[in-house]
C-alpha cells in the first residue's frame, strides 16, 4: 500500500494542510464541548440573571444571586458542603497513600487486588448510599450486630450515623468510593518509578522517614494532587448522596440547588440555577488556587 512514490508525494504536500488536519482532529470535540458545556453555563447564567425566555423579563437582575447569598442558611450550607468535600477527600487521600505504600512494599498479588479495587469504581454512588443506609441506620445491620452483642437494647440507643449532624454516612460512602480511585492513581506511579528510587535511597542510607518524605511523597505528589482535585470537585458538586443520607436541614449546596430547581414553584428555578453556578465558581476557584499554589512551590524548588 505504501510505496516509496506515494510516501514522497505525501511528504511534499504535508506541510500545507497541517493546521487544517489538526483542526479536523480537534474541532468536533471542542465544538460539542463549547456548545453543550459552555452553552449550558451561559444559558444557566442568563436564567439565573432573570432572563426567562418567553416570560418577557428583559432586564438583567442579580436578585436571585443576592437572595441566595443573603439567605441565613447559605453560610451553613456552604460550610456543610465544604466539610463533606474536604473531609472525605483528606481521609481518602491518607488511607490511599498508606494503602498504596503497603501494597507496593509487601508486593501483594497485584492482579487480584487491582481487580478488587476496580469494583467500587463501577458501582454507582446511589447503590452505595442505599446499602450504607441498610448498614448504618438505627435498625441496620451494624445496629443489629450491636444488639446481638448486648451493647444496645433498642434501635434508639444506636448512634445516629445516617442523616446525622456530621454527615458521617455521606463521608463513608464517598470514602468507600474514592479510596480505590486515588489508590490506583498513586499505585500506577509507584509501580513505574517508586521501587528503584527507594533502592537508591537505601543505598544512600536514607532512613524510612527520609525515604517517605524525600522520595515517595515527591514522586506521588502530582498524581495524588490531581486525584484529590477530581475527588474534591466531584464531592462538592454531587447531590445524590447528600440527598439520600443527609439531614433535611441544613442542606448541602447541591441538594439545595436540586430542590429549588425541582420546586413546584417555577419562580424558584432561577435560584436553583444560581446556586448551581455558585457551586461551579467555588470548584473552579479551588482548582485555580491549587494550580497557583503548585506553580508557586514549583518556582521555589524544593519546599521545606
Amino acid at each position: 500500500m505504501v510505496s516509496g512514490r506515494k510516501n514522497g508525494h505525501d511528504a511534499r504536500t504535508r506541510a500545507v494542510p497541517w493546521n487544517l488536519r489538526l483542526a479536523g482532529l480537534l474541532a468536533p470535540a471542542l465544538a460539542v464541548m463549547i456548545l453543550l458545556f459552555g452553552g449550558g453555563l451561559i444559558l444557566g447564567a442568563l436564567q439565573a440573571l432573570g432572563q426567562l425566555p418567553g416570560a418577557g423579563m428583559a432586564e438583567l437582575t442579580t436578585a436571585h444571586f443576592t437572595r441566595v447569598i443573603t439567605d441565613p442558611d447559605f453560610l451553613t450550607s456552604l460550610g456543610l458542603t465544604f466539610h463533606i468535600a474536604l473531609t472525605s477527600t483528606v481521609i481518602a487521600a491518607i488511607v490511599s497513600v498508606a494503602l498504596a505504600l503497603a501494597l507496593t512494599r509487601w508486593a501483594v498479588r497485584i492482579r487480584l487486588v487491582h481487580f478488587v479495587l476496580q469494583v467500587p469504581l463501577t458501582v454507582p454512588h446511589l447503590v452505595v448510599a442505599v446499602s450504607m443506609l441498610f448498614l448504618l441506620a438505627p435498625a441496620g445491620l451494624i445496629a443489629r450486630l450491636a444488639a446481638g452483642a448486648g451493647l444496645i437494647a433498642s434501635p434508639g440507643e444506636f448512634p445516629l450515623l445516617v442523616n446525622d449532624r456530621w454527615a458521617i454516612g455521606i463521608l463513608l460512602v464517598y470514602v468507600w468510593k474514592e479510596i480505590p480511585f486515588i489508590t490506583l492513581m498513586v499505585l500506577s506511579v509507584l509501580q513505574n518509578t517508586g521501587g528503584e528510587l527507594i533502592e537508591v535511597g537505601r543505598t544512600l542510607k536514607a532512613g524510612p522517614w527520609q525515604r517517605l518524605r524525600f522520595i515517595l511523597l515527591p514522586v506521588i505528589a502530582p498524581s495524588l494532587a490531581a486525584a484529590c482535585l477530581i475527588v474534591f470537585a466531584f464531592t462538592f458538586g454531587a447531590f445524590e448522596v447528600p440527598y439520600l443520607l443527609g439531614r433535611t436541614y441544613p442542606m448541602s449546596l447541591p441538594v439545595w440547588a436540586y430542590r429549588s430547581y425541582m420546586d413546584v414553584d417555577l419562580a424558584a428555578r432561577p435560584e436553583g440555577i444560581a446556586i448551581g453556578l455558585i457551586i461551579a465558581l467555588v470548584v473552579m476557584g479551588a482548582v485555580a488556587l491549587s494550580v497557583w499554589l503548585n506553580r508557586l512551590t514549583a518556582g521555589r524548588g524544593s519546599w521545606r
Partner: protein
Amino acid sequence: MKTWRQSTLAAAIVLTVALPFLPLVLWSLSQRWFFPGLWPQQWGLRAWQHLLAAAGGQVASGLLQSTLLAAVTAAVSLVVGVPAGRALGLYAFRGKTLAAVLVVLPLIVPPLSVAMGLHLWFIRLGLAETFAGIVLVHLTVCLPYTVFVMWGVFANYDPDVEDQAGGLEVGRGLAGDAASGVAGHRGGGPLLLSALLVPVPEHPDHRRGPGHDPADPAFCPHGQRGSPRGGRGEPGFRGAGLSRAAGQRPPPGPRRPDGGALMGELRLESLALGYGPDPVVRDLTLSVTDGEMMSLLGP
C-alpha cells in the same frame, strides 16, 4: 511473616469492598426481617419474583434503554474524542492551553450546574426526555473524559511505531497491537488517568499476517501527519527507525493469550521505501523468524 501481612491486607481489602453488597443481597432475599434479628426471620424470593415476573417487561425495557444509552454515548464519545485526544497528546500548537482548559473544565465543574442551564433549552428544542437529548447531556461529561484519557495515552505514544508498521506493510491489526503495546506499557504519564482507566490490552487476534489486511488509513496515516516530534524527512532518523522495526523485537507489553510472543515470523514482500522522490529500497523480499535479529541500515 510477610505472607501473613499480605493475606491480611488482601483480605481486608476484599472484605471492605464486599461489605456494602451484603445488606443488599440479604434484603433482596428476605420476606420478614425485624430489628434484633441478624438474619431474616423469613426468607423469600418475592422481591426477585416481582422484579422478573410482574415488573419484568418494565425492567427489561429499562435495561435495554440504559444499555443503548450507554453504548451510543460511549460510541459517540470515542468517535469524537479519540482524534482530539490524539491531537492534544502528540502535537504542540498555539491555543493548546485553551483547548486543555476546555477539556478539563467539564470534568471539574459539577454536571448539575451545566444540566440545569441546558434543561429549559432542551425543552424548547424538543430534546428534553428524548433519547438524543439524554445522550447529549451525558456527552458533556463523557466526551471530556474520553479526550482526557486518550490525551494521556497519546502523550506516551510514539507515532513512529505506526509509521514503521505502515512502512513494513503491516496490516491494521498488528499496527494497532504495536501501538497499544507502547501505550499500555508505559503507564504513568503526565496524565495518570490513562494508566488507571485503560486496562491491560487484550489481544484476541494476532494471526493476521502482513498483507492479509488492507492498511487502515486511520491507523496508518503514513506520510500524512506533520509531527513536530517525529523528525520526518531526515534520512538518518528514518534509517534508524527502519532498522529498529525490522529488528524484530516484539513490543514488551502485549502477549498472546497462549503466552507466546507477539509475532512468530515477519515476512516482507516486495517492500519499497523512499525519501521524497528518491527510492532507497526497491522490491525487497525477506523473512525473519522468531529470535532472529535483523537490521537494515540506511544510506
